[in-house]
């Protein structure tokens, strides 16, 4: 560093990242290393490559990997096919109810996947609401749709879950695209179709690829949907196989080897995603001057109405079914269902629950406590990382990377790491669940906080310092208050995510640990859908509250 003249002093707060760094290193890297180390041992715990060799060369493993990639590809295509028209409508038109469509489309995104599965089964199942409606409509006694427990069901559920990702990311990008090239092409004599094909689509591709890669990653790592809808060894993916190997076959090293293999794939995908993101940032200069118009042609109007209605049915149908079903009970298999509050009375401990409902009341208390602790813990952690990651240079950016890294690792793998650790230190209980949840939610909290921290103009800091404030004082009085909303948003997301977390919890915990999603999973497994729906309704309410509160905070931005 011979010549550092004229360098702006921005990295001064890098030391503030140290606590968060230590926390993440301890909570994330230790379990991950425990998993990876396990992959290099044999059944007796000796150092060996035999587990890796057998796992990687087994035809069964390769078939599982192949199926995982295949279902993720189909799901991504389906999500894109549904999401892209929506992105077009949202980006180009103003229409009544547009806000509602956007809001409705965000719903699946904030719902836990176990809830999505439940809603799916209730809505699309053979005895589901859609089939019953069609049976009444067409006067048949046979359910016309046989969707469940097939590849089709998995893809449809994934599409339901992920099309909003495509729609939101692409439409945001599209909305901000400068329209002058399109207008220029029109004046040069290109038809609207040609303009879309030759100008708009190529410009959209980076956003489309970026969003698709993200969806592919989500579908690759999907767990609850596969576990419930896949059902058997035919429809098993890497994630469910890791879980099954570790917890059903009790083959720790084998599960670890699979985890290693899965990690290689997801990290490759993530690298692609990040590269596309970078291109996205440099490629287009944003303008905000696009004037959106009401659709004028009858075709446009029809499309908008059709899309809005389908979105509502497709998305809200399953959710409303869950809520509705939770208020019913069936006395016996053949008896018609009737309105009842029995599941809520069991859930809130008013009357003793039967079978799996026995632990519902405890599970509710557990889940809420865990989620509150996790949400509160993310605030100092993300504030510390945001302060440190604000500057430029290798230290801040590597801290940010570390904060985001847990996203590259599926929650099943994180759960697996904690499972291995738990067996070593003989700690049972909820501490491990809290720690695992914390690792999983921190990247999401950071995604809310770090961009906001970056938005704070460096002049604010410079101004405060010329007025006599120290760097730390400046952070507390200027930057931290500006980050307040994003910290609360981050914490609320953390709360919602923790409340619905199934993957890691199921993988790491033994039967003494009960949370809402675990009990829901058990209830679905024993076909007590109505009880599961009562628990699901609690999750829906929590997610809805979080969603409304964060949306409320969004409007409250500084100038």
């Amino acid at each position, binding site marked *: 560093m011979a*010549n*550092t*003249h*004229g*360098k*702006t*002093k921005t990295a001064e707060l890098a030391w503030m990242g140290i606590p968060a760094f230590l926390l993440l290193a301890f909570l994330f890297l230790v379990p991950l290393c425990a998993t990876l180390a396990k992959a290099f041992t044999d059944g007796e715990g000796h150092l060996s490559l035999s587990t890796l060799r057998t796992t990687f060369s087994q035809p069964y493993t390769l078939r599982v990997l192949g199926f995982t990639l295949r279902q993720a590809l189909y799901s991504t295509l389906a999500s894109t096919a549904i999401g892209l028209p929506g992105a077009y409508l949202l980006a180009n038109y103003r229409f009544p109810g547009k806000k509602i469509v956007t809001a409705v489309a965000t719903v699946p995104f904030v719902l836990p996947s176990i809830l999505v599965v439940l809603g799916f089964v209730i809505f699309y199942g053979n005895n589901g609401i859609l089939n019953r409606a069609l049976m009444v409509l067409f006067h048949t006694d046979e359910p016309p749709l046989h969707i469940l427990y097939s590849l089709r069901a998995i893809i449809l559920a994934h599409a339901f879950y992920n099309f909003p990702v495509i729609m939101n990311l692409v439409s945001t990008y599209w909305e901000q695209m400068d329209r002058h090239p399109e207008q220029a092409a029109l004046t040069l004599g290109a038809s609207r179709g040609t303009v879309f094909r030759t100008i708009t689509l190529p410009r959209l591709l980076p956003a489309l690829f970026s969003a698709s890669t993200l969806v592919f990653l989500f579908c690759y790592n999907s767990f609850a949907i596969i576990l419930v809808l896949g059902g058997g060894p035919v429809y098993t993916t890497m994630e469910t196989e890791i879980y099954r190997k570790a917890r059903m076959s009790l083959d720790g090293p084998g599960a670890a080897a699979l985890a290693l293999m899965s990690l290689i794939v997801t990290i490759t995908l993530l690298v692609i995603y990040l590269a596309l993101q970078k291109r996205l940032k440099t490629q287009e200069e944003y303008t905000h001057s696009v004037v959106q118009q009401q659709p004028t042609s009858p075709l446009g109007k029809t499309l908008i109405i059709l899309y809005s209605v389908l979105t509502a049915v497709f998305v809200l149908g399953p959710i409303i079914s869950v809520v509705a079903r939770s208020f019913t009970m069936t006395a016996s298999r053949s008896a018609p269902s009737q309105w009842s509050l029995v599941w809520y009375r069991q859930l809130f401990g008013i009357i003793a629950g039967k079978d799996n409902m026995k632990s519902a009341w405890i599970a509710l208390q557990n889940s809420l406590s865990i989620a509150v602790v996790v949400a509160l813990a993310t605030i100092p952690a993300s504030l510390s990382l945001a302060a440190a990651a604000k500057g430029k240079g290798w230290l801040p950016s590597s801290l940010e990377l570390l904060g985001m890294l847990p996203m590259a690792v599926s929650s099943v793998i994180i759960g697996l790491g904690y499972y291995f650790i738990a067996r070593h230190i003989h700690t049972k209980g909820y501490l491990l669940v809290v720690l695992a949840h914390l690792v999983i939610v921190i990247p999401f909290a950071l995604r809310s906080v770090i961009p906001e921290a970056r938005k704070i*103009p460096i*002049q*604010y800091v*410079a*101004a*405060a*310092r*010329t*007025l*006599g*404030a*120290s760097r730390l*004082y400046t952070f507390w*009085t*200027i930057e931290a*208050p*500006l980050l307040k909303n994003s910290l609360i948003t981050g914490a609320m997301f953390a709360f919602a995510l923790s409340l619905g977390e199934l993957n890691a919890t199921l993988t790491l915990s033994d039967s003494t640990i009960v949370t809402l999603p675990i009990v829901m999973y058990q209830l679905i497994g024993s076909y007590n859908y109505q009880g599961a729906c009562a628990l699901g309704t609690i999750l829906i309410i929590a997610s809805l509250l979080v969603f409304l509160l964060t949306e409320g905070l969004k409007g409250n931005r*500084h*100038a």
Partner: protein
Amino acid sequence: MPETRGLDCTLKASYPDFTLDVSFSVKRGELACIIGPSGCGKTTTLQLLSGLIKPGNGSSITLEGADILHLPTEQRQVALVFQDYALFPQMTVEDNIAYPMKLRKIPKMERTRKVSALLDLVSLPGFQKRKPGQLSGGERQRVALARALASEPKLLLLDEPLSALDTKLRKHLREEIRRIHDETGVTMLYVTHDQNEAMAIADSIIVMNHGSIEQIASPEELYAHPKTLFAATFMGEGNTLPYSIITQTLASEGNDYVVFSPKSGEQTIFFRPEQVTLQSDALLPLPEFLPHLEFKDATLASCVFQGSFYQLVYHWNEYQIMAISDRRPKGRTATLGVRLLDIHQFLDGQAVML
């Protein structure tokens, strides 16, 4: 007399594509302007003075006799008004202005009183509870100024404070800044790229170009006696012509007046439009015995009415000559005269004394 010492500094900074090397003083209580084209190092100078960037080797900054070079920004007592004001958006006007006073542990009563006094000073009485988002550009500017003054700085830096405002407001606010300066007596260093702004308010002007200082002088001195061709052309309109023109146009008795012995290097002459006489229109054309240049048969290319005068552009051979007149010229052609006394000569951009 240490109490009259203001700022003395030598600032050096090197970047891959730019080197700053300046040395200047500002007297205590003076309003100095740094002026120069964009990219000349004005803003870098302010950032170095406020300690927001690290200085290069050989730099020194003393403020009122104390060495502040190695002090962190917050201990320098150098306030900076930012080009985009940098008001803290989450705080009210009052909280913004009180911010530096809280840092100095001034009691609340005192703070309230001072905020209100400062708001009076910047002509925004009663604005305490507003948020920055509710203010116009000019109002934000005044709040930023009040906030900077609230830190009771020994030196107040202003980085193109008016550049985001419209012309009329700019003119008004620069008078305001001068008034506030005179009322508070704070030493000010004001950066601008607008020479009119500098000439209107500065006690002294520092002309910068390519990271170094061209000239430091009072506005009048700078206008009348520019030391470099850059300073001459940057401070107002002027005609820059090659030196060789003199031999073609020199009109004096006997024609033996030796102007300047030619040396190697690029030689130019420079004169202001108001120093050009329209020989044909003038009541008293320049007489033979007064050495002057004569541009015969110059043709009028444009004549723009400016209210109190006409701005004229003449073509003479391949050159353009700007002139002003209080009347519209009669013919399309004229003979233009310039006294030799009014001509500045430059060799490679540096002034040469006649």
